[in-house]
């Protein structure tokens, strides 16, 4: 129907050339026609070179498909052959043809107009897709180039600035070298020492723990010596410290390391030291040595100040933990061996506890977090001089280092994604100014929340903001660095409130003991302790009212209403053991989450009972059967 027979002498062409110029349907039928080869057809047709060349030039300019070109070439060749056969000269035929460019344009346009609608649709769609793809590719390449040539402008060495302040502290006032030496002496037994915390005189391991303490008397003395110093004096990024409690870690050889990537050894070393001293204090209490017990607690409270010195959140949380444990010990001491401490010693203990970490309700200082984020911005963003800039290619290493196990794992862990994604993501990720502003807004929200006492808190706003960030995929990508670096502080705030409650309970317990010694009996109310033995009655962190107090058979019971916000008269929730009951009563949940209280709670209810602070409860010692 359409001149299927090729004018091409297939035998004169190579197999591969014919294959290349044969339509697929011919190949399927087993016929290597090569009929799409216009040049070969022109070579073989019986026309003068001038006319063949004219046809080639026209065809080349038509911008048609190969099949269409072949058809047009065949038709034009036939036309010239007819002309020559009728007696016209090649020159006359060429002259009569018209302008080659115009002819090609008109022929091409006409053939394209005549294509079937389906073919046109497919071509337009393909061209459209190609155009869109080309545009996307251009945009991608543009962002890739922009990303590759972007360099951060690191102007501050935050670690050096921090260390410069430490260097100003006289060496004789720095506790850290002494703590380090002490830790090296107990590093191998720290786990065993941790287990000794829960041992009591009646437990089987008590004697063994005592022997452990004796064997490490030198380290205990060193911790005391360190605690007596006015400053912690720890340098950040100290190579020796890096391997202190991480023997497998490689020394950080880089200068000007990232603030948020630092490995901090001192929090754990201080925590281990506090544990050691608390165990020693318990043994001192059991053996009737009040001075030694007080000395241990005094040292730990000084270590609390040391732990808070650097300003990192982790340090502040470790300090809070140490303070909380000290308060618990004081409560136990007052319950079991109050007579070991004199009035003066109790008063000193009260002052130290009240003044620890600045006194009042314990709070988190987030300034170091701000500096860490500023450090992040300067390392992973360019700087246009006006505070703004775009993400640089270095952020890939950030995602690889800190992405594992978090929401952005899909990008960080996938090698293809992590290679291809950065240019695309850099187009979406917020600029430096916006990122910094967003972080600051979030941190301000956290600070406002942490300023609220526990009884005024509801669902965490900052957690809600973080959840909102995660719930929207585009926002998650846009603020990806926040997703990597932004911790959740709501739990930290809760930890501080519990520690405040325990400390306040210890202060009240000291006041009760001093009152009893003075009057021979316990007061009828806590107000009787003020102002002589207690500046004011501390609030119940759960309802904001004063802590609850009753005398039961002449024995004082100090308690908080606990998570159910319901005064049960100092009754603990039902549980299989006392420590679990305390956990049930104190595990804060926002009021809106409480649907009901019961003795057998589900996730929607809370335990019915109070958090008994005094006398402190503890689990009975388990004896082997």
């Amino acid at each position: 129907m359409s001149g299927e027979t090729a004018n091409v002498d297939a035998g004169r062409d190579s197999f591969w050339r014919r294959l290349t110029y044969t339509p697929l349907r011919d190949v399927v039928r087993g016929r290597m026609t090569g009929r799409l080869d216009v040049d070969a057809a022109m070579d073989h047709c019986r026309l003068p070179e001038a006319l063949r060349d004219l046809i080639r030039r026209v065809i080349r300019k038509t911008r048609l498909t190969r099949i269409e070109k072949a058809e047009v070439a065949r038709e034009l060749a036939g036309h010239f052959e007819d002309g020559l056969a009728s007696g016209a000269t090649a020159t006359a035929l060429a002259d009569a043809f018209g302008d080659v460019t115009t002819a090609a344009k008109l022929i091409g346009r006409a053939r394209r107009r005549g294509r079937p609608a389906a073919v046109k649709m497919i071509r337009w769609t393909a061209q459209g897709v190609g155009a869109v793809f080309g545009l996307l590719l251009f945009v991608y390449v543009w962002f890739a180039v922009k990303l590759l040539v972007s360099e951060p402008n690191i102007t501050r060495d935050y670690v050096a600035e921090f260390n410069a302040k430490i260097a100003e502290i006289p060496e004789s006032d720095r506790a850290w070298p002494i703590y380090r030496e002490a830790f090296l002496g107990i590093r191998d037994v720290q786990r065993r020492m941790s287990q000794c915390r829960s041992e009591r005189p009646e437990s089987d391991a008590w004697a063994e723990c005592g022997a452990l303490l004796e064997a490490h008397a030198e380290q205990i003395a060193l911790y005391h010596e360190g605690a007596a110093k006015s400053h912690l004096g720890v340098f950040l990024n100290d190579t020796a410290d890096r391997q202190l409690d991480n023997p497998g870690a490689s020394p950080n050889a880089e200068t000007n390391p990232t603030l948020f990537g630092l490995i901090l050894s001192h929090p754990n070393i201080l925590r281990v030291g506090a544990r050691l001293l608390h165990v020693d204090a318990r043994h001192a209490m059991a053996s009737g040595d009040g001075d030694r017990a007080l000395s241990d607690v005094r040292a730990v409270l000084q270590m609390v100040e040391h732990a808070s010195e650097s300003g990192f959140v982790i340090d502040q949380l470790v300090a809070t933990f140490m303070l909380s444990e000290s308060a618990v010990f004081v409560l136990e001491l007052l319950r079991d061996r109050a007579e070991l401490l004199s009035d003066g010693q109790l008063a000193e203990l009260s002052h130290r506890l009240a003044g620890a970490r600045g006194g009042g309700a314990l709070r988190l200082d987030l300034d170091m977090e701000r500096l860490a984020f500023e450090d992040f911005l300067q390392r992973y963003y360019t700087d246009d001089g006006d505070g703004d800039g775009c993400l640089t290619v270095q952020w890939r290493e950030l995602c690889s280092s800190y992405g594992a196990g978090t929401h952005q794992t899909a990008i960080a862990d996938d090698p293809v994604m992590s290679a291809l994604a950065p240019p695309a993501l850099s187009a979406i990720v917020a600029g430096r100014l916006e990122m910094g502003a967003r972080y600051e807004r979030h941190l301000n929200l956290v600070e406002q929340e942490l300023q609220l006492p526990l009884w005024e808190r509801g669902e965490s706003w900052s957690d809600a903001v973080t959840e909102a960030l995660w719930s929207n995929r585009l926002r998650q990508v846009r603020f990806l660095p926040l997703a990597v670096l932004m911790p959740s502080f709501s739990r930290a705030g809760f930890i501080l409130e519990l520690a405040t409650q325990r400390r306040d309970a210890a202060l009240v317990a000291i006041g009760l003991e001093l009152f009893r010694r003075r009057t021979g009996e316990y007061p009828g109310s806590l107000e009787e302790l003020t102002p002589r033995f207690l500046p004011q009655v501390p609030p119940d962190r759960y309802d904001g009212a004063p802590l609850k107090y009753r005398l039961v058979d002449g024995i004082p019971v100090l308690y908080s209403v606990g998570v159910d916000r319901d005064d049960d008269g100092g009754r603990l929730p039902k549980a299989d053991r006392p420590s679990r009951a305390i956990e049930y009563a104190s595990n804060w949940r926002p009021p809106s989450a409480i649907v009901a209280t019961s003795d057998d709670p589900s996730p929607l209810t809370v335990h019915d009972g109070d958090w008994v602070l005094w006398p402190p409860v503890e689990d009975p010692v388990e004896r082997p059967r």
Partner: protein
Amino acid sequence: MRIERELMRGAGPVAVLKLLARQPMYGYELVEALSQQTDGVLAMGQSTLYPMLYNLEGKGQIKAFWREARSGRQRKYYRLTKKGKARLADSTAQWEALWRAMRGLGLVGDGVAVGDTAS
């Protein structure tokens, strides 16, 4: 005489349709017929004819087919379709109306051959 492009644009396709109404023709044959039967007035080069043929084919007014010539090679012919016939009839009526209008104005006189008025 050289005809303005706008006039050719209207006349050329109708002339081709008229020629094909008589019998199927191939490209060179059409070129020769247009030149000879119109005293060169509607003579057009291949660069004009073939685009015109492709346009008409795209509109479905003519249809191409290959036929073996006496020389043995394949030659592409064109024939009028039903659609083409309808267009030819319509165009013929328009040209007749135009001719009458121009005659009424004195632009054209009696004795000008317009060819067959109907097919």
